[in-house]
């Protein structure tokens, strides 16, 4: 067979140059945009009211194999540290007990978000039309598997090597008992995967990741390190090395719709709803985890929030997009109020309901009370004096026969759950942006805590029908619920949850709870539509 001109040219070229040649990732990536083709049935299974452009680019130019190499290097470092030096110095037992408890929640709840983001980015990969955009979402799908495994690894590591394995060892089962779980699902699970695909992207990437992962995954590492925990920084800072690509994905979602007419109609509403949805849960829960779940304090939560959420996310992401019609979220004023007060409001309720947790909580000490008052003037008058009263009644001691939930009932401070965010609130005590409003629909009463969630529900009530824990457990005795949902330690009787982290303190058992005869009541049974 005759040698073609091309083969001759190749042979000639080799005669003068035998240099080893390879192909790098970006040389392949530049062809990705041409990998798709038009065909009649090509439409997504997850429609959006926006039209995503066909030429949207990916900012980091990864292909599957280079992605794997990069991630593998990250893993060598991360798991190398955990399995080698941190194991050698017995790091898990050198963490402050309060923080050990905090990581039961933080790592597992972050895992929920990461896990659901696998599905969320699967949906976006389906709905995008530009192959580069699909490629960005796909890498994120794999990242989210990584993060699910990493968060699991933190609980696994603390369970195996730490000071209190209970809760770390079964968080995926016991997390469903208490008042923080359904709100977690709204914000980090269903909020990412159920709705208009672009709306989900805004929730997940533009707000959840670009805004709240910075305090949740970056700032948390400072709090962890201060409290002796080097496990969390090792894992979480490595998680965050993927998040920057996710933030870019969220930004490119906006780029892909920026010139679509629908954007001018809907984008600001979707952005505001997403911002409110995410902040409604993250703002109080993270603030509570940092300030009430630590011994050593890094800075007031409101400052962390002001830096990462207001100044940097607000100014650098949202502010810069102003010329494309993106507006400051209308709910920002209420969100800022929440960032100052809502975590204090939430800790009151979380502590009152402590037996339903899968972690131990601790009342603020006198030194902490002083720190709170210095950073949040008015704290002692609103919260500190209540803790003083609870402590005086022996709330940490199983022999006291007192859990703070009883104080709420005695003093007529009903606790409601916002139907849309599923976040509990006590209208008569809270200083955050929550006030009670009540509607009746489909033969059922619904309570709400704010304008923004109420509006979402009024326009689409069928999206927010989930029953809350008070409706679910109504009429049932507390110890019975805890036992049924596996909230006990390996001896079968001591609760995983405890109202203190004192190493000398007595641990509460199911029997101690049973003696209280605490029966769940649904507060919606005693209110009517229009109540405020």
């Amino acid at each position, binding site marked *: 067979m005759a040698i073609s001109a091309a083969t001759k040219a190749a042979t000639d070229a080799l005669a003068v140059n035998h240099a080893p040649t390879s192909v790098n990732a*970006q*040389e392949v*990536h*530049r062809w990705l945009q041409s990998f798709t083709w038009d065909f009649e049935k090509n439409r997504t299974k997850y429609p959006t009211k926006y039209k995503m452009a066909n030429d*949207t*680019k990916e*900012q*980091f*130019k*990864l292909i599957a194999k280079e992605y794997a190499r*990069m991630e593998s*290097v*990250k893993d060598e*470092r991360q798991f190398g540290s955990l399995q080698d030096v941190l194991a050698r110095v017995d790091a898990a037992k050198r963490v402050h007990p309060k923080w050990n408890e905090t990581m039961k929640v933080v790592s597992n709840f972050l895992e929920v978000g990461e896990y659901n983001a696998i599905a969320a980015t699967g949906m976006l990969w389906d709905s995008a039309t530009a192959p580069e955009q699909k490629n960005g979402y796909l890498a994120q799908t794999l990242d989210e598997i990584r993060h699910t495994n990493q968060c699991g690894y933190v609980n696994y590591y603390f369970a195996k090597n730490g000071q209190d394995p209970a809760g770390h060892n079964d968080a995926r089962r016991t997390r469903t008992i208490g008042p923080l779980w359904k709100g977690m699902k709204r914000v980090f699970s269903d909020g990412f995967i159920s709705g208009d695909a672009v709306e989900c992207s805004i929730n997940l990437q533009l707000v959840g990741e670009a805004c709240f992962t*910075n305090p949740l*995954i*970056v700032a948390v*590492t*400072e709090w962890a*390190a*201060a409290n002796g925990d080097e496990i969390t*920084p090792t894992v979480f*800072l*490595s998680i*965050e*090395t993927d*998040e*920057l690509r996710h*933030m*870019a994905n969220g*930004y*490119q979602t906006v*780029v892909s719709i*920026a010139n679509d007419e629908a954007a001018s109609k809907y984008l600001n509403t979707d952005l505001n709803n997403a911002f409110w949805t995410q902040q409604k849960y993250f703002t109080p829960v993270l603030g509570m985890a940092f300030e009430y779940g630590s011994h050593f304090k890094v800075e007031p939560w*409101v*400052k962390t929030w*002001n*830096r990462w959420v*207001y*100044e*940097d*996310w*607000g*100014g*650098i*992401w*949202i*502010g*810069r997009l*102003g010329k*494309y019609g993106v507006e400051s*979220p209308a709910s*920002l*004023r209420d969100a*800022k*109020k929440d960032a*100052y007060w809502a975590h204090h409001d939430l800790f009151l309720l979380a502590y009152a309901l402590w037996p339903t947790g899968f972690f131990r909580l601790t009342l603020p000490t006198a030194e902490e009370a002083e720190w709170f008052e*210095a*950073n949040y*003037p008015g704290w002692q008058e609103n919260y500190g004096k209540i803790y003083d009263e609870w402590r005086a009644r022996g709330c940490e001691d199983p022999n006291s026969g007192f859990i703070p939930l009883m104080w709420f009932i005695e003093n007529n401070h009903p606790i409601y759950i916002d139907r849309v965010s599923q976040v509990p609130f006590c209208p008569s005590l809270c200083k955050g942006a929550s006030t009670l409003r009540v509607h009746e629909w489909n033969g059922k009463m619904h309570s709400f805590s704010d304008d923004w969630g109420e509006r979402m529900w009024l326009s689409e009530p069928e999206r927010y029908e989930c029953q809350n824990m008070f409706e679910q457990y109504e009429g049932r005795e507390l110890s019975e619920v805890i036992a049924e949902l596996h909230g006990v330690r390996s001896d079968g009787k001591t609760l995983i949850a405890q109202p203190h982290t004192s190493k000398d303190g007595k641990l509460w058992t199911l029997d101690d709870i049973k003696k209280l005869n605490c029966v769940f009541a649904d507060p919606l049974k005693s209110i009517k539509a229009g109540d405020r």
Partner: protein
Amino acid sequence: MSKSSNSYGAGIMGKTGKAFHDEYFAEENQVVHESNEVVLVLKKSDEINVIVDEYLLGDHADDNKTLVIEDRSGYWWLKATGKIEVDCAEVAELLGKNFSVYDFLVDVSSTIGRAYTLGDTFTITSELMGLDTKLKDLQS
């Protein structure tokens, strides 16, 4: 501590108690304000520490005088006006080993601003890439 407006404790962040409360809740601070800054979080590592000390604060200290770098335990926190750029081919020479832009991304923990790669270069910029400025592909 640096007095730059880009530093971690600049402006309202240096205030406490009532002074912080009053500025935080001031009427003008109830909407977002456009910012031309970028923020980069670099996870501390053997290579990143060299990049911070010898590249960003060393040979390239004059590239962007607004750049502030602060130690936050597990990570370096960087803030600058405009952009921050890292040429990984040059870093590879500094480190004395192969070091691609994807090796750099191994320890880049967060970005606030538009970040992208092109060839060996990592850039984070306040420009609106893909909207005001086109993203480029590697040329053959």
